[in-house]
């Protein structure tokens, strides 16, 4: 009997259109996002913009009143661009994480919306937009509504000082990394507010845990950041990246044994600050239901998750910039970039190509770290509150201090004989290659020990 609830798959051509459109989106969205950043961000650098006003608009940028307005408008567009980047990348990471988690858990993951479920994040966001924006009756309504904005602001403001490529940065602040540390603290304000204002005990637990965790782990992360800052002699993000080279043995992580330690301290601290497993205590599902976001629904809830996934990019990008050479293209030195740039007000086409390449290098390194973060999340259990504090104050903080002191001595040694950092770079690079080799050998061994059927991935 035909039921009115019967479900039929879309006709084949509809599926094909969906398939190819989502496949196109997979390629177009990242290219479009990064392309816009590459085209637009160099333009709003002050000197380039002033040259543009002088040579294209034929005004004197210093005396013409319109300069301020135009520049303000240009910055607003840049802000919107960054926010778009954060939201879309956060969305795509939510899909990516779920797919990776699917493979880790020997299942498929979301596969219904578009090819490989690529549009799942759009569907989720649209669904959450239509949900009721519920404020609990006993909640502090104003704080409850305001809390997500703090979290989103803390996340988005970070992107201002984060470099994407050689000239692709909104503002190369001379206190770049310090600024990033400062605005990241806004997130904890939002989380604490949401935990308190929800008037729910579970949310309160989550908020308190989060405050304790994020504030504690800012100490080791700040100490670990001191190492590359000391090595580069600047707080500017671009300055720190310029002090490194393109090849792995020229990265800070290998040029100094203490930086190798500091990288892991920073990485662990950032996992804790971003509330990722094994430090997901504030939103520990099995303990606190959903922690500080227990009472949220609808789009405010979506904002928390947006921040969580956009943070994936940010924490990885910070680690890549400080320790893993950032956007440095192997074999391209500062003078090569200057030569490519030329002297004209608008750079030649080749320069744009190399800019895009530097963005590609940066994005590739960051994606590797993002994948590692996701991998850790779906592998490790959660640690307990007291263990989390122990790890921070008993191990990471002293180790961070040690790394900083060692770096001070190391820099004196480097100033006497530059060869030491090349030796360290070579040795650590060889060790790294060996570790990767061992990892693949072990993985192959483990895979050969697994028995049973392979996951059926035909329905990907």
């Amino acid at each position: 009997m035909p039921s009115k609830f019967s479900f039929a798959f879309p006709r084949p051509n509809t599926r094909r259109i969906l398939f190819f459109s989502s496949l196109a989106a997979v390629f177009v969205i990242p290219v479009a996002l990064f392309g816009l950043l590459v085209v637009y961000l160099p333009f709003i650098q002050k000197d380039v913009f002033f040259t543009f006003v002088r040579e294209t608009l034929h005004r004197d940028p210093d005396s013409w009143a319109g300069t301020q307005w135009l520049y303000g408008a240009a910055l607003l567009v840049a802000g919107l661009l960054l926010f778009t980047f954060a939201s879309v990348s956060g969305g795509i990471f939510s899909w990516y994480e779920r797919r990776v988690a699917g493979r880790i858990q020997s299942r498929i993951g979301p596969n219904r919306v578009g090819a490989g479920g690529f549009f799942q994040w759009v569907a989720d966001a649209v669904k959450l937009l239509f949900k009721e924006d519920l404020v609990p009756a006993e909640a502090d309504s104003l704080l409850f509504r305001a809390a997500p904005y703090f979290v989103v602001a803390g996340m988005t403001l970070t992107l201002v000082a984060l470099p994407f490529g050689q000239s692709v940065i909104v503002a190369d602040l001379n206190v770049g990394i310090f600024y990033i540390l400062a605005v990241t603290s806004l997130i904890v304000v939002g989380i604490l507010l949401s935990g308190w204002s929800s008037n729910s005990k579970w949310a309160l637990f989550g908020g308190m845990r989060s405050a304790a965790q994020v504030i504690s782990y800012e100490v080791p992360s700040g100490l670990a950041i001191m190492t590359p800052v000391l090595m580069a002699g600047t707080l500017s993000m671009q300055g720190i990246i310029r002090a490194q080279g393109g090849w792995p043995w020229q990265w800070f992580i290998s040029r100094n044994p203490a930086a190798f330690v500091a990288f892991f301290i920073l990485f662990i601290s950032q996992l804790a600050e971003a509330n990722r497993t094994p430090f997901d205590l504030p939103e520990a599902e099995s303990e606190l239901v959903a922690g500080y976001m227990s009472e949220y629904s609808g789009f405010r809830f979506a904002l928390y998750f947006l921040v969580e996934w956009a943070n994936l990019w940010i924490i990885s990008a910070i680690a890549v910039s400080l320790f893993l050479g950032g956007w440095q293209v192997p074999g391209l030195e500062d003078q090569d970039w200057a030569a490519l740039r030329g002297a004209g007000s608008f750079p030649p086409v080749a320069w744009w190509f190399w800019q895009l390449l530097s963005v590609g290098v940066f994005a590739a390194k960051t994606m590797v770290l993002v994948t590692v973060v996701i991998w850790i999340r779906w592998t490790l259990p959660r640690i307990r509150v007291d263990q989390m504090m122990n790890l921070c104050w008993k191990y990471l903080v002293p180790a961070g201090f040690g790394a900083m002191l060692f770096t001070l001595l190391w820099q004196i040694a480097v100033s006497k004989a530059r060869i030491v950092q090349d030796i360290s770079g070579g040795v650590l690079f060889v060790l790294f290659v060996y570790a990767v080799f061992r990892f693949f050998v072990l993985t192959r061994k483990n895979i050969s020990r697994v028995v049973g059927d392979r996951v059926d991935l035909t329905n990907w």
Partner: protein
Amino acid sequence: MSKLVLRRIDRNNEEMLVNFGPQHPSTHGVLNFLVETDGEVMRRAIPDIGYLHRSLEKIGEIVGYPGYMPYTDRIDYLAAMFANEGYAIAVEKLIKVEVPKRAQYLRAISCELNRIASHLVSIGTMATDIGAVTPLVYALREREAINDLIEALCGARLTYNYHRIGGVAFDMPEGWRDKVLHFLERFESLIQEWDRLITWNEIYLKRLGGVAVITREQAIDYGLVGPNLRGSGVDWDVRRDVPYGAYPDFKFDVPVGRGWAGTVGDAFDRYYVRVLEMAQSCRIARQALEKLPDGETMAKVPRRIKPEAGEVMSRVESARGELAYYVVSDGTERAYRVRARTGSFLAMGIIEDISSGLMIADLIALIASLDVVAPETDR
């Protein structure tokens, strides 16, 4: 009690009362714990049970002896075979029926498969409650294979109603023996994979080792049974010490907690005893399949079961420990009293005692390590 939210203890301290449940991701069913906390540290957690009470013992007095069999499935939905078997053995004792050898072997096989499935859920949720989500999926994947096998045997995946008074409902289908042997072969190596996946993970050991220790004396005093008792180092297994059914024919070891992660009787011991028990269950199931005798699967049982007046007790080793049925007959077609003594209920009793001074995260480890299943607690 639940009106009390903040209570002043002394000048500087207040304690907060949190309702941990009835709807909470890690209460494994509908349980409620009234948790008195001072920050992250609990003063105590009081179990508040009864949300899943379905009057199963009263129903046993209303429906006839064979009619009660499907209801026993609902006592513990993760390990329904044992509840079937315990009741069947009790009534068989009452009407003095000898179960055919083949039926006893089939009972052992189905029970051991069910034990593996139940322990898989237990250790999988244990890992999830500690925060590692992935192992649960691996555990449920294997449980699915067992569900398929049991479905092929008796047509049901959760509430089996397979054991009947006097035997089992169906003989095993053609080719089932090879399927089970194939599964056992695969599964025994998967236990090692499970160890690599989660058991010896450093964080996991730190979270479970030395947490919620139940000493040997406490375990005996509170009447803990099954893996919870053995986790505390007490070497007691009904299958070996008070044999029933086909179990005297099989060789198997009884794993006992040895303090693998530090202390004997901690959450890790209870967890790891279950992992080791799965391997022993494989061993028993394999022996039973090899020795499986031919013959009837059902004894001659009268259509109308009307036992003489008297009382009888049966004990089986369920996945959650010793499951005892106490059946009183008054000589009519209906039991005068049916009483089930279940492992989860006994385990709930010790939580209040153990929980003081633990952290909230440890309470979850404690509940998961005791393998409390809400319907078995309430019945």
